[in-house]
């Protein structure tokens, strides 16, 4: 690997979001330690950030996929709320699992509808999903009759808690995943000559970091279940995008859909699938959200779609399609929630939070754009 590769690989454009997260956590950690003496880096607080970021992270992963295919989905938060509302209103009568299945089917149906309008009628995805964002929220108001709904049945409640609540020990999983990443990176380096590939330092470093976390956290380290769901989901999508023909075609469809089509890629199917994935993920997130509270408020998750998109942008996903990484989106989501968590811990007041978050997003976009332009010129 030449110095130029190093600079690209670890430059702001490629790795900026990791630096930003580390820097932010270091600053908040130092300030909390010096001002209140509280331990920002306690396992309890860090896993709490993971828990808070899990739903947005999960939806961000799906959003990244749809952005890569060159489309857009503004309706995710509304779909999540609808899915939650359907679950809460049906779970009493049908039981938890059947109600969750209905909620998922409805969410997937919205994805099919979004995709069909965009693909078949050729209307811009931004406009279509802006419409469904509003319409689905209206549907939520109809389903809930503008009131908060709650689960009364204790048996259903227990199922929800079992599904969403509780914690899972993760030391073993961290060792396994970290080990696999390091082994994979070592294998890639071993095959470097043959495969003409650059050593995947990112995977190696990530693997070492996971093993390190496992050692630091000890056997008692545990996270909430939604964190596990998000992690597994991200790993699967990451693998599919990076190592399969499906992933390659997803990027090709977003890079130039006409060229992909004329190369025999079923562009319509891929774009449609991205809509379904996005809405389906939102539906799942909505089920988790409703299960967390055992209730749903008609304005639940309002505006969350913007946080989801912000996470994808922080992760360097292109709004024009063809580029993006789900792992970095996840880190982008963590960055946003670490920031919010820091504001809480430092007791700075929520007033400044929006301002700072917005600034961070624009600064990130600026780094990607300027950094990208500089690379092209070189």
């Amino acid at each position, binding site marked *: 690997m030449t110095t130029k590769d190093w600079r690209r690989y670890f430059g702001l454009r490629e790795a900026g979001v990791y630096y930003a997260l580390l820097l932010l956590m270091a600053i908040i950690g130092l300030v909390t330690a010096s001002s209140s003496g509280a331990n920002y880096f306690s396992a309890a607080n860090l896993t709490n950030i993971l828990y808070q970021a899990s739903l947005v992270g999960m939806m961000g992963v799906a959003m990244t996929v749809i952005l890569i295919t060159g489309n857009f989905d503004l309706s995710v938060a509304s779909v999540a709320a609808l899915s939650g509302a359907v679950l809460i209103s049906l779970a009493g009568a049908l039981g938890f699992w059947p109600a969750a299945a209905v909620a998922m089917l409805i969410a997937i149906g919205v994805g099919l509808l979004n995709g069909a309008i965009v693909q078949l009628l050729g209307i811009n995805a931004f406009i279509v999903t802006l419409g469904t964002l509003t319409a689905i929220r209206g549907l939520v108001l109809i389903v809930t009759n503008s009131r908060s709904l709650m689960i009364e049945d204790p048996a259903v409640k227990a199922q929800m808690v079992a599904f969403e609540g509780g914690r899972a020990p993760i030391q073993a999983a961290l060792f396994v995943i970290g080990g696999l990443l390091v082994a994979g990176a070592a294998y890639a380096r071993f095959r470097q000559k043959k495969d003409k590939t650059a050593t995947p330092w990112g995977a190696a470093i990530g693997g070492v970091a996971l093993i390190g976390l496992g050692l630091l956290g000890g056997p008692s380290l545990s996270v909430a279940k939604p964190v596990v769901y998000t992690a597994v989901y991200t790993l699967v999508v990451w693998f599919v995008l990076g190592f399969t023909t499906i992933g390659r075609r997803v990027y090709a469809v977003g890079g130039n859909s006409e060229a992909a089509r*004329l190369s*025999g890629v079923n562009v319509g199917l891929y774009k449609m699938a991205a809509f379904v994935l996005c809405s389906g993920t939102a539906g799942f997130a909505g089920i988790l959200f409703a299960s967390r509270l055992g209730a749903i408020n008609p304005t639940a998750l309002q505006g969350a779609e913007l946080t989801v998109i912000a996470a994808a942008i922080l992760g360097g996903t292109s709004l024009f399609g063809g580029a993006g990484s789900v792992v970095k989106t996840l880190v982008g989501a963590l960055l946003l929630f670490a920031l919010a968590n820091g504001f809480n811990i430092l007791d700075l007041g929520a007033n400044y939070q929006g301002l700072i978050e917005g600034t961070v997003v624009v600064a990130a976009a600026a780094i990607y754009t300027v950094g990208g332009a500089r690379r092209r010129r070189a």
Partner: protein
Amino acid sequence: MDAPLLQLRKVEKTFPNGTVALRGVDFDAYAGRVHGLLGANGAGKSTLINILSGAAPASRGTIVWRGREVAFKTPAEANAAGIATIHQHIPLAPTLSVLENIFLGRSGMWRHNPGERIRFEALCRDVGYAIDPDVLVADLPIGKRQMVAIMQALGGGADLIVMDEPTASLANEEREIVYQAVRRLAAQGKGIVFVSHFLDEVVALTDQVTVLRDGREAMRAKTKDVDERAIAEAIVGKAVATLDHLREDRAVVTGPELLIVRNLASGDKLRPVSLQVRRGEIVGLAGLLGAGRSELLLAVFGADRHATGEVMLDGEPLPRSTAGAVRADVALVPEDRKTQGLIPGFEIWRNITLPHLDDTAFGRLLTRRETEWARGAAAIEKLRIKAPSPETVVDELSGGNAQKVTVAKWLFGAVKLLLLDEPTAGIDVGAKADILALTRRLAESGVGVIIVFSEFEELLAVCDRILVMRDGAIVAERAASATSEHELVLLAGGRGARGERAAHPIH
């Protein structure tokens, strides 16, 4: 001899990544003369143009403009000094009118300005071309857009006009309009730098010719002292075999029918068309731009959802989707490599393997880098693509080399029927011969080929049989050995041999 308008002395250009594009080029441009600038893909033409137009600074050497040494930092500076550049990809705003596009760069606050129309009329007179100023550019065919771009460049009152392949995407009669404009402007005392791959037009149009090869000047001469062959040799650096050798007595193709098309139609673009292609046969489609040639290829490939009719390959109906067509071993090299052929941001190897990605993967699912990379490397070698490695992103390739990638991506899977739409557009002489020879070899191995060329010479060189299209229909069929460029021009242009249609302009 009068002083030159522009003098370049020992101009060099080295890019930050170490690529040396120019290694000391001298170039003079005089008022009232047309200067031809030629060279193979990657010879340094584009770099030289960028230096002239102020888009990129020279690394070393001097540029003298009207007797004064200059160093343009931006295109606007060069423009203000009186150098206008018309780039290959026409940078017009499609949603604005012709008038608004032509005066896009002007200052002033109001969108509409009565003085503009008077200046526009003067401009039309200068160029010798009339066009409706209020038509949206999006509604114009590409030939007229090219004229709008030329008028836009002249709108600022330039003395030296640099034209980068202004005729590359034009049909014959549209080219003639550009030629007339060039001659007129030269007669008015403007200096013209005319970049082109077409040797015949360079010989016919220019006063002086400069050929670049590997960043150096390979030839500088008065056009009247050289001929096409000499220029071609200067471009390639060795004696080139002309296309004629491809035409050596070819046996009549008698293989079994491979493709049968019956009544394939699509809207107004394509009237019901029927044709057959045998195994090993190369069928050429001749016609002007907009005659329906590309539409026919897209419809056969299943890329046109609205097409009706029957397409049979090897006796079985061809599925009406691009994915189905690729699975049935049909390949298409589309007309426009930028919008239809390549995935920007993908490396050469990723572009190459896209059509037959499944074949390279474990269980059709897990990608195998080693296999894919090897295909990229093989493509570079096979078509002599000028790139450091398969790792090169296609955006960084010059036009001709990018075109080679769009051809190469079909060379690694089974192909029964190959559809080629202007496969040599923007490619230099040497590479053109490579691609034509490759097409012939593929045909000899039993592949059926339908090929579209705007250049009738190329059609005659490579095809067995030629179908002439006009207004979306096939109007004539000729064996390549039994026709001539002259006859094809007449057939395609509306003055049919049988005189069935009156001559009329086609837009």
